[in-house]
Structure formats: structure tokens, C-alpha cells
């Protein structure tokens, strides 16, 4: 099956536009580590404030890039696997909404009127355009998802005997999670923050807003992750030369995420007041159940890789690892996915530590946290986005990768960088270094009474890692631009399709045939896990907070 021709321009824009923005997002990642390790001892660098840049870093890399890519990748997957059934008009509408939203939110960020970080915690108030922009991006992504639904229903009707292709199950699960979890965020922004930022309402219930944010904020990380999971289950086994070990587990994992993504967000709020510890404990239990899909994935992917390696002639208990296409120029995509998995082992394990209820007191809001989540969102997620973006852009334009050796180097360089970065920040975090702090102005300035020399080496190690990550992205753009300048072959363009793995165990298990029971279970889980704490917060009737901007301790006059 091929990709709809009418979708080419949509998908190319959805990938290339955020990649251009990402170059700035990554640039400010590098600037941040230089601030943090004390090499830059200033409020700003090249006219961009530390927190302004941090806001752009988070919004561009974690919201814009990930959302655009999920829609683009879903367009390709759904079109390819479900008989070219994407509604083209809706796909265009989605792209326009997301682009207008991004520009609307970017403007106040670059003017310094929305330095509220990507979590935009009230009572900090951003310029109203920031909230409007975020809403447009999210609504655009909804429309992008809706563009697949009529075609999916037609396909199901036409093929009642067939299982929905696994890649389509993956992308539909991604967006079912997204559709459910963006509703509380929509309430927070549209009902609480936007009217308040316009001065129409006097105060905002901060405790409620934070709870709604994390109701959205944790499933958000699965929204980032699930497109990469889709690649792991449907592309990686084929690249490795084998088959997906268990089709059932692929389906099960995607569907269990529909249930478990949302009712666990309080694990981000273990250290907060005004939330009963019993609800926190409930969320801790549900969070740890994520170990089930995670270990199922670890098992299935390891078995699939081993199957491929043994087909390639691999032998022994572990020696088969050497028979995977780690350095195959024809299959340069392989290490983007494989190294993402390697990084994710450590991202997952450190995530278990964060989620472990009272143990969270050791790490909450320290540099440990960015060290952890860069091993997830800047590990498997980012490498998956880089690899698949290159594959899809070149495929849809009928071009070849012009620098396969450099393309192969990117994931290894990135892995070296992100491991170095995280090692430094894990260490400084365990010794009390805070996240989201311009350390060069105080704790890592020898002239400051707050100077903490015990953090210096670790933060410098982190900075070296951050620079290596920046270098990997430079190499990536070199590969992309050089390939884009190469000749275009219409035959390659017409024959382009994502690799599709066959399954080794391909049973048709009734429990994972339909989304509906899993969606119902997900809604029920959310009602049980979030109903009582939200009722408690609303009933408590906390006084509304006036608005503040980051540069003044005085509340904004209305």
C-alpha cells in the first residue's frame, strides 16, 4: 500500500516546519547547559533570557515538534495501512490550525511576554496569545486525528475478517490517549487561565489548575512516546531482518496505555499541599502497573531483535547482538530506533524511582528530573522523530540519503551526548542541585555566598553532554540538507512506503480487537482516580490568586 499523493505536501510541511523551529529549541538547550555550569554568568545570552529560552526549548521541542510529528506520522501510517483513507481537507485544516497556533504562541515567547515555561503554572500569567496559540495547536491535532476516523470505519466495514493493521492501532491509540487527556488541559486553559489573563476574572484556583495540568501532563508523555512505540513494533523488527515476535502484545500494549495513561498524573504532585496522600498512593499503584506494558515491550522487542539477528546468522546467548544492522548504510534508520531503546531502559528505570511515592522526596524538582526525562523524550522519542522524519521526507520527495555514514553517526553521537548530560545531572540532582535554575548566577558563581563547588564537576559533565547533543543535531541537519539538495527520482517517490514487519506469533485475540472496551475502561479509571481529588479541591474553595509576571513580586493591577 502507498501513501496518498494529496497528502505529500501536508506531511512534508508538518515535518519540516517544526524541524526548523527545533534548531532553535536545541540551540537553547546548549545555551542552558552553559548557563547552568557557570560558563555564562548572566541573565541572558545573545538577548534571550534564560527562562525565555527555557520556555521556547520546552514549548518547541516537547509540544510543537512532538505534536506535529505525531499528526504527520499518523497521516503516513493511516494512509499506507488503511487503503489511502485519510480525509485530505481535514488534514489540511489540521496543519493550518497547528501552524497558526504555533506562530501565535511563539510571538509572545520571543517578545518576552510569556516566559512561563511549558508548564505555564499559574499564578504566573502569560500574554493571552500564548494560551490561544497552545489551544489552536491542540485543536489542530484533534482535527488531524478526526481526519482518519471515517476512513478507519470504512476500512473496518470493508474488512470485517481482518485485524486492524498494528501500526494503525498504534497511531489510533496515541490519539485516543491525546483526545482524552487534552480535555482537562482545555478546561484549565479556556475556563481558568484565558479569561483570567484577559482580566475578566479576578483570581484563579491554583491547586485545581495544577491538578488539571498534570491530569494532562503525564498522558502527554505517552502521546510523545507512542508514535515511537509504533515504529518499534512495526518497523524495527523488519529492519533487524526478522519478524515481530508477538502481534498480540503490540495490540495489548497500545490498548493498555489507553487505560493507564491518565489516571496516574498525581505522581507528579507527590510533594504538593492540599492533595490527600491516599489519592497520591492510589496514583502510585496505578503508575507502577505501567511496568506491565513496559516489560511486555522489553520482552517482545528483544525477542523480535533476536529473531532477526538469528536469521542473519547470529549465534550464542548474547553474541547475536553483533548480527544486527548497527552500521548498515542501507538501513541507517536501525540505530535511531535501537539506540532509542537502549536509552529508554535507563529512562524507564529512573522513572520508576520518581514514581515510587515517598522516594520522590529525594529527587523532586532537582536536576535528577531533567536527567530522567531527557532519557525518555530526548531518547527514544527524539531519535524516533529524527529517524522517521528523515525517512519520510526523503521518501515523499523521491530522494536518497546523501550521507549515510553521517546519518548513521547521529544516533550514536546523540546517545553519547544524552548519557553524558544525564550522568552529570543525575549526580548534581542527588546532591541537591535544582532544575529550572540559572545556576551560573548564584550556586555556580564563586563570588556568590550561595556557591556550591560540590555541584561544579557534575554540571560541567552535563554541559559537555549537552554540547555533544547539539553537535549530533548539527550533523543531522547536514545530512538532511545535503540529501534535500540531491536529485529527485519520481519512481522512488511513488514506491515509498514505511517498512512493515510481519508477525511471528500472529494470533487473533478477541480481547484486543476493538478499542471501545478499552476506552470505556480508561474513562472509568479516570473517574475513579481523579473524580474524588478534583471534587475535594473544588469543595475546598481556595481563594483565587491574582496574576503575576516573572519580573515583579507585585501582582498585576487589574
Amino acid at each position: 500500500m502507498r501513501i496518498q499523493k494529496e497528502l505529500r505536501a501536508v506531511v512534508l510541511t508538518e515535518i519540516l516546519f517544526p524541524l526548523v523551529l527545533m534548531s532553535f529549541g536545541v540551540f537553547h538547550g546548549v545555551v542552558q547547559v552553559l548557563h547552568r555550569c557557570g560558563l555564562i554568568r548572566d541573565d541572558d545570552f545573545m538577548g534571550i533570557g534564560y527562562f525565555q529560552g527555557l520556555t521556547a526549548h520546552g514549548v518547541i521541542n516537547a509540544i510543537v515538534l512532538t505534536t506535529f510529528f505525531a499528526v504527520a506520522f499518523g497521516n503516513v501510517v493511516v494512509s499506507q495501512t488503511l487503503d489511502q483513507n485519510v480525509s485530505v481537507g481535514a488534514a489540511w485544516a489540521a496543519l493550518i490550525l497547528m501552524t497558526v497556533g504555533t506562530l501565535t504562541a511563539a510571538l509572545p515567547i520571543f517578545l518576552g511576554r510569556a516566559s512561563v515555561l511549558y508548564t505555564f503554572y499559574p499564578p504566573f500569567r502569560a500574554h493571552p496569545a500564548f494560551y490561544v496559540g497552545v489551544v489552536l495547536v491542540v485543536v489542530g491535532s484533534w482535527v488531524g486525528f478526526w481526519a482518519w476516523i471515517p476512513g478507519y470505519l470504512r476500512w473496518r466495514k470493508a474488512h470485517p475478517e481482518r485485524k486492524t493493521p498494528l501500526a494503525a492501532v498504534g497511531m489510533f491509540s496515541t490519539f485516543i490517549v491525546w483526545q482524552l487527556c487534552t480535555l482537562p488541559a482545555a478546561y484549565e486553559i479556556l475556563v481558568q487561565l484565558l479569561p483570567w489573563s484577559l482580566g475578566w476574572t479576578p483570581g484563579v484556583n491554583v491547586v485545581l489548575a495544577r491538578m488539571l495540568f498534570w491530569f494532562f501532563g503525564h498522558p502527554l508523555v505517552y502521546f510523545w512516546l507512542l508514535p515511537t512505540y509504533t515504529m518499534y513494533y512495526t518497523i524495527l523488527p523488519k529492519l533487524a531482518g526478522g519478524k515481530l515476535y508477538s502481534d498480540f502484545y503490540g495490540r495489548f500494549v497500545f490498548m493498555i496505555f489507553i487505560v493507564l495513561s491518565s489516571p496516574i498524573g498525581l505522581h507528579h504532585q507527590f510533594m504538593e499541599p492540599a492533595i490527600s496522600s491516599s489519592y497520591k498512593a492510589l496514583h502510585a499503584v496505578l503508575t507502577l502497573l505501567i511496568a506491565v506494558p513496559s516489560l511486555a515491550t522489553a520482552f517482545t522487542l528483544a525477542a523480535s531483535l533476536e529473531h532477526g539477528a538469528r536469521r542473519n546468522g547470529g549465534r550464542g546467548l548474547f553474541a547475536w547482538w553483533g548480527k544486527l544492522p548497527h552500521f548498515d548504510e542501507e538501513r541507517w534508520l536501525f540505530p535511531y530506533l535501537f539506540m532509542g531503546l537502549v536509552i529508554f531502559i535507563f529512562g524507564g528505570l529512573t522513572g520508576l524511582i520518581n514514581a515510587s511515592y515517598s522516594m520522590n522526596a529525594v529527587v523532586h524538582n532537582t536536576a535528577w528530573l531533567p536527567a530522567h526525562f531527557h532519557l525518555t523524550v530526548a531518547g527514544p522519542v527524539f531519535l524516533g522523530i529524527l529517524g522517521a522524519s528523515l525517512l519520510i521526507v526523503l521518501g515523499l520527495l523521491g530522494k536518497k540519503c546523501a550521507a549515510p555514514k553521517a546519518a548513521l553517526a547521529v544516533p550514536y553521537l546523540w546517545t553519547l551526548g544524552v548519557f553524558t548530560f544525564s550522568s552529570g545531572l543525575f549526580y548534581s540532582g542527588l546532591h541537591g542541585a535544582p532544575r529550572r535554575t540559572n545556576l551560573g548566577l548564584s550556586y555556580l558563581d564563586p563570588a556568590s555566598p550561595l556557591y556550591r563547588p560540590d555541584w561544579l564537576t557534575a554540571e560541567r559533565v552535563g554541559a559537555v553532554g549537552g554540547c555533544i547533543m547539539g553537535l549530533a543535531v548539527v550533523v543531522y541537519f547536514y545530512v538532511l540538507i545535503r540529501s534535500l539538495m540531491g536529485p529527485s527520482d519520481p519512481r522512488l517517490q511513488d514506491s515509498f512506503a514505511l517498512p512493515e514487519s510481519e508477525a511471528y506469533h500472529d494470533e487473533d485475540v478477541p480481547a484486543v480487537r476493538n478499542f471501545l472496551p478499552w476506552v470505556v475502561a480508561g474513562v472509568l479509571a479516570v473517574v475513579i482516580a481523579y473524580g474524588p481529588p478534583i471534587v475535594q479541591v473544588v469543595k475546598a474553595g481556595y481563594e483565587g490568586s491574582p496574576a503575576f509576571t516573572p519580573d515583579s513580586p507585585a501582582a498585576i493591577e487589574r
Partner: protein
Amino acid sequence: MALLRGVPNIEKKVFLAALLFAGAQLALIGYAAWKLGVSVPTCVTNVKPFASGALITVGPGRYEAHVVAKMWQFEPDTITVPKGSIVDFYVTSADVAHGFYIDRTNVNLMALPFVVNYAQARFTEPGKYPVLCHEYCGVGHNGMAATVEVTP
């Protein structure tokens, strides 16, 4: 189990192993929380939100610290107690969200306006314990700090 018809045996075993793994970790967390008493903050009802900071002596070696976090300082900014003291920290915010983290202890709290957060610490070693704000609270966030001084 008609719904699970066709699931291969090895997949079932992996599922059970994963559940056991999660169960074992939950048991350890439960042990730490309820047997060792290392807990997380919960709703505070005995202390109402307060506007100014104070260190209150409630008994020999027992103190109550009422800490107000505000852009960009803690009130009080020095808390002095003798070695061996047990201190109940009640923390609130006068404006935006702040953090309250005491180095070398398990005190790690979020401070929010109009609500009170709580943690307890016992200081067995004399010395200076840096306290810092670990939530972004504006341009002065980088230097928002205080000290707990434990005298011998």
C-alpha cells in the same frame, strides 16, 4: 477466558512476571511509607494559611517553623535550632509557586498560595543546611535561598 483465546503461553508468563515485578516494588514502597513512616505531604487542616513567618518553640527540642515563600525570599531566612531538634515545617506562598528543599534531609515541598504544606525533619548533625527554592518563580528564582542552622 474466551477473550484471551490464542494468547501464547510465553506471553502469559511474561505478563505474570511483570505483575510480580510491579507488586514487589509496591510492597517495598508500602513498607517505606507505612512501616518506616517515610510519607508524602497530605492535606493540612490544623494550620491555616499564614501571612508572616515564625519559629515557634513548642517544647524542649521541638519547634514549629512557619515559612512564607515569596518572590524571591523565604521568611524567616535563617532558622536556628539546637542539635537533636525535631522541626515541623509548615510552608505557604505569598504569591506564585515556590519550592522548599532542605539539603541533606527529606524535606522537599511545593509552596502554593492559600494552602499549607507540611514536612518534619530531625537534625542530628550540627552545621548549616542550605535551603533553596527549586520551582521557577521568576527572574530572582536563581538566588532564592535560606539556611537552617543547627547549633552544637
